[in-house]
């Protein structure tokens, strides 16, 4: 069963077609990887999916409902959670309060005030940030900030989680920790879309990979197929000069 379906999505910034007629669908429960060279339109796609940017044309269907023109907070209530590539913690608030925001506002059913604390602490426990709950984001390391991003998204009880380069800037060991966490999240029934440049992560996590280039879908398939595809290699490394020999 498909949880998300996008049809002919288009977004341009002036003369640049950031997303150009993109269509695909996501099955419930899968981990879908989206890769592509810088500027391929991956982050723009996420912004369109969570409603931060209005789209120029196309249609987004989530859980059978048309959400094309819904505002971000309504999409969040429906079950779309996301993290940001550049972490955006609320720096005036403690780690715990950062999660509490998502718990208080992000659920379609209200989380009662007296359970917010326990609820938020459980989420922090799950991502492994419990001992830092009273710190302010300024005191967190990069991997911890990434975990906080994930924790906040989880606190909105998403059905679909959009992860925008959560591994960027992390050491291999730190990657492993988050990799495990994503697997665990997915096992609980949350569908995940992953934008990632760390190929090891994509290989280990994603059943299906979509390669984007110039705002369009270049190809789609399992990691091995996609990684061996000539068009993909060309998109990343450039074309071999054919007339040279």
């Amino acid at each position, binding site marked *: 069963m498909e949880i998300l379906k996008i049809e002919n999505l288009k977004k341009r910034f002036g003369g640049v077609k950031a997303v150009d007629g993109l269509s695909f669908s996501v099955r419930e429960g899968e981990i879908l990887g989206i890769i592509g060279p810088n500027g391929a339109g991956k982050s723009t796609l996420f912004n369109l999916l969570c409603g931060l940017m209005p789209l120029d044309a196309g249609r987004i269907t989530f859980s059978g409902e048309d959400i094309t023109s819904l505002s*971000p907070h309504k999409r*969040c209530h429906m079950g779309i959670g996301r993290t940001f590539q550049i972490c*955006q913690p609320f720096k005036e608030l403690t780690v715990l309060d950062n999660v509490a925001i998502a718990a208080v506002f992000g659920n379609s059913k209200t989380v009662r005030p007296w359970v917010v604390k326990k609820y938020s602490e459980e989420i922090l426990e799950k991502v492994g940030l419990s001992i830092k709950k009273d710190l302010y984001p300024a005191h967190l390391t990069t991997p911890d900030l990434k975990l906080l991003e994930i924790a906040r998204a989880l606190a909105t009880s998403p059905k679909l989680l959009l992860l925008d380069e959560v591994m960027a800037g992390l050491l291999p060991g730190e990657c492993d920790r988050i990799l495990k966490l994503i697997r665990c999240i997915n096992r609980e029934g949350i569908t995940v879309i992953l934008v990632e440049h760390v190929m090891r992560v994509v290989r280990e996590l994603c059943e299906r990979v979509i390669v984007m280039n110039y705002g369009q879908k270049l190809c789609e398939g399992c990691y091995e197929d996609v990684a061996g595809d000539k068009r993909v290699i060309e998109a990343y490394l450039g074309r071999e000069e054919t007339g040279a020999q």
Partner: protein
Amino acid sequence: MKNFKLKYVIVAAAIILAGIFPFITGEYYRHLGILTLMYAVLALSWDFAARAELVSFAHTGFFGLGAYTSALTFLKLGFPLYLSFAAAVLLTIVVAIALGYLTLRLSGIYFAIATLAFSEVLLVVALQLPNVTGGAMGISVPSLFGGMRVYSYCLILGILALAVVVSIYLERSHYHLAFSAMRTSPGAASVLGVNTVRYRLASFTLSAIFSCLAGAFYVHYTTTTIPYEAFSLTIGVASMVMAVLGGLYSTAGPVLGAIVLKIIEEYMRVTIPYGYMIIYGLILVAGILFLPKGLVGVQKKWKFLK
């Protein structure tokens, strides 16, 4: 624990002092007290908007709107005093929501400019409708409570108390979370489920209501006003400066800022007859340079979940 107790002692002392102040002083100090409380309401109301990252110059407009609506419904429609206040508040709510919607996409300096324009437009309207507003000649109303300053003091103290209660509610409830999230990152806030439009409009409207109440009180208290006074930019700027100097995003800050600045201003006005505004300005500059978080800025950060 010790600090905790000290805080309550200070608050209790302030409430008692505010309560007995008009009964132990003469007319001059009563008048000064009334104006100080009025500015405290304005500063607090400016802070309400600031909490949602709105730098607003519309407070001048709402102050004047409150003054004129209240005075005109009182004079021309024969509304009783409190009903004229209510009429002013109702009109302000409608105008604030409309203005809020129109300026939804604006932020920072652009929002400030739009709200400045709003205030200026109201000034021109008040000047250009002499049949209704009395034009540049202004309007006069009978004096409030027959000129009994003690009652006027109680009224404005009541309005301030209401503003303080609202402010404390905003600080202790989920509004606090929403506002601080919107200040840091509106995008992230909305993705996490915060209805940013709603909270922005709520903060702006609440803020407008209290400016309007201050204006409505002002015209009845001083018994007369002209457009250049009721829609004077000084009002908006003063409330901003008081809130900033006292400490933004807090209840005590703007109130304290209003009291301190009003006392300094009055003291200088009396002791330095010429050019006191220059010294006053220098104090403001020094305050903003050396106390970037305001008078209460040294206070510990507040947590929603303890």
